């Protein structure tokens, strides 16, 4: 098991109190797995990605564990995480353009970065060239400034840098969202290639776009309002979703071939609850067409046939299920 996250809670400090952006999530990512992380804005998916690499100033670690290849990630300790960042956990951020130093040539920037990690830059050079070729860049980009590259090229440069030390876990945060359709396809396929070549062991691919996830991810984890809704193989999420939220979300996607005149799609009425003071019970309750009295209690996480779901619908009426919170292993 490459990564195991156990009841992780990370809140945002605000003047009005804590925003419970990540409120107890438990999941595992297998070796070689690309796990897609989907959800609407504010559901906590980016918070989850950031928590595994660096908490920013407003984020507060509350509880939970993340274990990567047997070692616990010291999420709460910014300087202790230094040892893990870039070497064992790495991130490709959404805005590659703002991830690169505009005053440095790409090559010099990479060398400075490697030196800061105590890596021999001369030994790394041939590997660097090989990886640039892998993502389809000429070695000449090393002599260029970020401004001379297109958005897609910058994205690929950042992918090369992030994976240069063969991290175990790569977090790709909305990397395709700012790209055109054709560059989006290239970027997403490059990440799959990076995994296939074994440069990273496993990957968390965060995006709001389920159609992109379906193309690249092995499994998809759907989040809603700071909690997990459903995790299943990508095919299953798309063709046989079980959580009411996933079902509505997938059916609201316009696909090429579906037209308003022939079939009117519907969105999900209402909006997610405020995470400042989230309601008890199932957080999707207010928008859920299937909600019953049971939903006033928090639904347990039920796992079967390699998929998991947090919904009372999946629980036979008379069985008792151990709650997810506090579950070990």
């Amino acid at each position: 098991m490459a990564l195991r996250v156990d009841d992780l809670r990370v809140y945002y400090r605000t003047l009005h109190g804590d925003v419970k952006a990540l409120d107890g999530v438990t999941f595992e990512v297998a070796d070689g797995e690309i796990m897609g992380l989907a959800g609407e804005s504010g559901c906590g998916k980016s918070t989850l990605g950031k928590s595994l690499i660096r908490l920013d100033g407003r984020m507060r670690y509350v509880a939970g564990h993340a274990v990567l290849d047997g070692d616990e990630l010291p999420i709460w300790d910014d300087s202790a995480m230094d040892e893990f960042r870039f070497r064992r956990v790495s991130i490709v951020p959404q805005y590659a353009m703002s991830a690169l130093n505009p005053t440095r040539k790409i090559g010099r920037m990479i060398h400075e970065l490697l030196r800061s990690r105590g890596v021999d830059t001369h030994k790394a050079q041939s590997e660097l060239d090989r990886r640039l070729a892998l993502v389809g860049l000429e070695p000449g980009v090393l002599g260029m400034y970020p401004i001379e590259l297109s958005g897609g090229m910058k994205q690929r440069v950042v992918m090369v840098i992030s994976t240069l030390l063969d991290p175990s876990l790569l977090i790709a945060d909305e990397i395709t969202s700012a790209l055109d359709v054709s560059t989006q396809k290239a970027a997403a396929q490059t990440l799959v290639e990076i995994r296939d070549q074994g440069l990273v062991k496993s990957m968390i691919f965060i995006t709001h776009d389920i159609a992109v996830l379906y193309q690249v991810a092995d499994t998809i984890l759907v989040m809603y309002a700071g909690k997990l809704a459903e995790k299943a193989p990508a095919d299953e999420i798309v063709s046989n979703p079980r959580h009411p939220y996933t079902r509505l979300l997938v059916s609201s996607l316009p696909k090429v071939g579906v037209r308003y005149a022939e079939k009117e799609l519907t969105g999900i009425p209402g909006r997610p609850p405020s995470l400042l003071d989230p309601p008890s019970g199932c957080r999707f309750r207010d928008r859920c067409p299937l909600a019953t009295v049971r939903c006033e209690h928090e639904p347990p996480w039920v796992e079967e046939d390699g998929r998991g779901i947090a919904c009372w619908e999946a629980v036979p009426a008379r069985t008792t299920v151990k709650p997810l919170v506090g579950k070990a292993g």
Partner: protein
Amino acid sequence: MLRLDHVSKTYRVGTLGRGRLTAVRDVTFELHPGEVLSVIGESGSGKSTIGRMVLRLLQPTAGSITYDDANISEFHRGALKGYYRHVQGVFQDPFSSYNPIFKADRIFGMVHTEFFHEVGADEWRRRVSAALESVALNPQDVLHKYPHQLSGGQLQRLLVARALLLDIRYLVADEIISMLDASTRIDVLNLLADLKTRGLGILFITHDLSLGNYISDRTIILRHGCVVEMGATEKVFGDPRHPYTKDLLASVPILHEKWRRDGTRATAAARPPEEAEAPRLVSIEDDHLVAAG
């Protein structure tokens, strides 16, 4: 009817504006009431420039844009105000479209004083409520809030409501749902389709092919400022003829259908030289034009 007739737009770029960049090259189309026309292109294709020219935020370098046979660049003062009563735009980033220190009701108040000062306060409140209802917003929820207190979807619908308060006939919707969540974007899209059935003409500018396909009656595919393919949506999407259109359609992520692992990398074709002419459009069938060459 809105008509663009051989419209081109060249920007001055570089130091002291010595360089030239032709963003839109010889584009001709018409937009009728009760029709959604999608303008689809990747970044740098000139799609937003077209929208801005229609809204008269930019002047075309060549060609003309006419509204009911009057050239919009000749509108001044009263005539221009009359034009904006009928033609309005909503843009991509709802957060930068608002003045951050104005509450939402003040946005509507400005429309009141600017365009409808003869309307009484009670009647105006009734109209604002009706406009908000029609975009599925609850007036109590939004009117006394600052922009930062509202979600992106709410802000975007507020802008549509603001446009509806005017007597609009055409709406330029420039990427209005690309910043919204999946579960709410379809509602904004359905709202546009609903407005269309009530007779509004919509210029729907987007980079997202599946959205364009879902909502539009007619489609224009743009590349580097030139029309590559245009016509009835079911013809352009169902039977794409230009290689670029085919490439685009093959790159769109579709549920239930995996990308082919063709290993080809998207290589952006270079922009055509500044002096080049736009490729000629050839009619293949009724209402389906494809660029030659």
